[in-house]
């Protein structure tokens, strides 16, 4: 397949979990210095394949061969992450694995020393790392605690960690999910340099634009099988999307609507922060009926506080909130009853009770009211009938009424939550990262439902880190930076690049001017 000397060769990999065939006769070969994108929806088998490669699972059938330092292919012992590390396979997980209170240097060296070595050879490590940093362009301060780093920097540390362990194959699992567009550009520059240096890279993603930008070859998995393996130059986004989903994807279109009365007005609102959600200060925001407002920002800059406020989990510390022209009580039950639909950021944590059944989860917010509650008892028949209808209307698959919710895929779980929320026809919807981690099919379904709700007259606050999504769906966008929210700007006239600059703290007019300049430069 490639003219380059192969460094990794998977042949006929198969893996089943019970009746589910996660991987079916997958062949994958990777050449030295090649960047391969592994594309596929959730549940297509990407993660299983990488877990097999990394020794977390043992394949039912097939073989794995990895090239040693001399370039000769040798079989990799199955089921041993140590063997995978020793064979030069490095992995950067979606969730970083750094110890916050150790320095960057300690984090990198951690686990590479022999236990009988009485002294740590930090001098040598430093020297080695300086070379790596220089070669790859991975600027990181080695002496600060890992906890003080930004997300982009943490990712660089993870990559350095793999390189320090002399990885010849680097696997990146959804590496851009947490990055701003500018950080993504930086990452791509690093990856290109590393590849030019001979590192073989597997780039796992479902973002088509990035796959097209960075990879030389794309392998598409669907339902555990390889459905496409082509040079990136020989394909395009539409073809890849279709290969991934197995059917053509309808283009999302947002018809302009005339906004109605304000559903939500924030006037100089402060919300005190907690560790993970950040604070917000003096936020002004108006969201009208039949309008979708987008909220952008790097995670932790205040959108978590806004979401907590609108979910009824955090009271405003200052300022005034008006909901549907009336007072606002920061209490989840009151908000639900008032007609606020809330889609939480973390489905597994806040959206469902994983060990409870689908029907129990479907009435998680509604069990208190008629017809589900009768004289203190839960009317199971009514709840099950309601759930069956919801699941049919919102195309929730992957289980019956009695299936525990944790067994649903992310997309189906989100559809269940969405169904639960939209069925009440809420007048205001908070959608916090509603499509994060979803595959294209499920994401478009969720987006279509939100647009449908907007058409029905709902006011929608869409908090998202996916700038393409914001630009595609929303009418106006505001950006959070360090707890402050910019004024709402009409989506027409905004670009991902301008939003990225604003997310990094540039003023709106400045960002717009600079991106306009760039455009004229390019022309």
């Amino acid at each position, binding site marked *: 397949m490639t003219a380059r000397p192969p460094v990794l060769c998977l042949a006929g990999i198969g893996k089943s*979990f*019970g009746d589910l065939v996660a991987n079916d006769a997958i062949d994958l070969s990777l050449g030295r210095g090649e960047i391969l994108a592994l594309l596929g929806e959730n549940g297509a088998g990407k993660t299983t394949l990488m877990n097999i490669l990394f020794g977390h699972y*043992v394949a039912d059938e097939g073989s794995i061969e990895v090239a040693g330092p001399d370039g000769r292919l040798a079989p990799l012992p199955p*089921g041993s992450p140590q063997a995978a590390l020793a064979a030069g396979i490095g992995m950067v997980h979606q969730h970083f694995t750094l110890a916050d209170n150790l320095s960057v240097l300690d984090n990198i060296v951690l686990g590479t020393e022999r236990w009988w070595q009485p002294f740590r050879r930090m001098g040598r490590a430093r020297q080695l790392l300086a070379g790596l940093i220089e070669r790859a362009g991975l600027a990181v301060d080695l002496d600060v605690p890992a906890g003080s780093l930004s997300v982009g920097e943490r990712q660089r540390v993870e990559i350095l960690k793999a390189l320090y362990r002399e990885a010849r194959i680097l696997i990146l699992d959804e590496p851009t999910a947490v990055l701003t567009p500018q950080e993504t550009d930086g990452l791509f520059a690093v990856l290109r340099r590393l590849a030019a240096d001979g590192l073989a890279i597997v780039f796992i993603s479902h973002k088509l634009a990035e796959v097209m930008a960075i990879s030389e070859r794309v392998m598409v998995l669907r339902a555990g099988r390889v459905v496409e393996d082509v040079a990136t130059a020989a394909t395009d986004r539409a073809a890849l999307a279709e290969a991934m989903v197995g059917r053509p994807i309808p283009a999302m279109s947002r018809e302009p609507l005339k906004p109605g009365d304000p559903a939500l007005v924030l006037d100089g609102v402060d919300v005190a922060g907690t560790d993970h959600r950040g604070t917000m200060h003096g936020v002004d925001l108006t969201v009208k009926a039949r309008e979708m407002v987008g909220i952008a920002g790097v995670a932790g800059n205040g959108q978590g506080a806004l979401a907590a406020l609108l*979910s*009824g*989990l955090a009271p405003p510390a200052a300022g005034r909130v008006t909901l549907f022209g009336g007072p606002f009580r920061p*209490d*989840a*039950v009151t908000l*639900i009853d008032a007609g606020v639909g*809330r889609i*939480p950021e*973390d489905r597994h*944590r*806040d*959206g*469902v*009770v*994983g*060990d*409870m059944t689908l029907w*129990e989860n479907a009435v*998680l*917010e509604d*069990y*208190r009211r008629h017809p*589900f*509650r009768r004289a*203190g*008892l*839960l009317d*199971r028949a009514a709840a099950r009938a309601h759930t069956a209808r919801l699941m049919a209307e919102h195309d929730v698959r992957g289980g019956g009424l009695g*299936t*525990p919710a944790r*067994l649903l895929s992310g997309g189906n779980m989100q559809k269940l939550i969405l169904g639960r929320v939209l069925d009440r026809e809420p007048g205001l919807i908070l959608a916090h990262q509603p499509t994060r981690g979803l595959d294209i099919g499920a994401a478009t379904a969720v987006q279509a439902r939100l647009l449908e709700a907007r058409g029905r007259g709902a006011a929608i606050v869409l908090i998202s880190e996916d700038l393409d999504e914001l630009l595609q769906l929303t009418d106006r966008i505001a950006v959070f930076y360090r707890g402050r929210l910019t004024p709402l700007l009409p989506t027409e006239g905004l670009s991902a690049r301008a939003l990225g600059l604003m997310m990094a703290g540039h003023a709106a007019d400045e960002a717009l001017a600079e991106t306009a300049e760039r455009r004229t430069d390019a022309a």
Partner: protein
Amino acid sequence: MRLEPRAHAPLWLQLAAPVGAALAALVITAVPLSWAEAPVLTAYAMLAQGALGSGFALTETLTKAAPLILTGLAAAIAFRARLWNIGAEGQLYAGALAAVMIGSGTVVLSPWLMVPLVLVAGALAGALLMLGPTLLKVRLGVDEVVTTLLLNFIMLLFVQMMVEGPLQDPMSLGWPQSMPIIDEAALPRLVERTRLHIGLIVALVAALAIWLTVQRTTFGFEVRAVGANPHAARFAGMSTTGVMVRVGLLSGALAGLAGVGEVAGLKGFLTQDLSPGYGYSGIVVAMLAQLNPLGVVLAALFVAGVFVGADSMSRAIGVSNTIADLIVAIALLTMLVASLVIRYRVRFG
């Protein structure tokens, strides 16, 4: 060997796992039994006979099962909501103390009123004792394992103070025991000339009621949601604090009822050795039952049978009856392994 998460545990497995755990415990205990140079099979035969072999043995087992069902329920309902109440022992004594204070002649009513009165008083006392640790947990995040556990010793010492002081029976010739429960307040016998009293009926009704509450009521729905995922429960608008407090009260009340049964149904007066650790055994019972309220009844019968049977076994073949504690303790460990088998599929190779 590796473990893979199971999508769904079939019902037969959920039933077979505790039975297998109990049998495994017996097999493992055979080792120390043979060290004690006891004939293992005879020993177990004596144990079974002592627990079930006669009408008397059976009523003794049922008598012992009654407090274990109640303390088992106390642990099961609390653990369901992830409220780790280790203090059923203290709550049991609180219930017993309340029963003695009300039922030893302070109030004299007809038995039809008196018996419910001491039951309610005991339940309230147990609930009240659990209220403190629960409030400390939900308000200040104080670890309830520590507070409930330590309250056990405080309660025991308090009981000692009471039975050597204000509550001491003047007729006891200086023994540290309380004034006796009056006849009107005594729990009626279920079977004549045995020690079996209506505490067993109270326990069975409580088990059924708790099962219905957990499975069928909206409150039970909240308990299960808060226990399984407090974040999602809070997001959906449930008051995790309110649920915790109510569960704490319920759990304490159940343990308090166990104390009433022991003092007003069995012993007739309060001493500081009223309970041979029923509060702690209740935790084992709840774990063996996988926190299922109906399973608690079966698990309590098993544990009670082992305790009662071990007594007669030790009399017959001269092995210490601490073997019963050993069996129950090992059963808890084997049950932990069994619950792993319920949640995971074990694969070899």
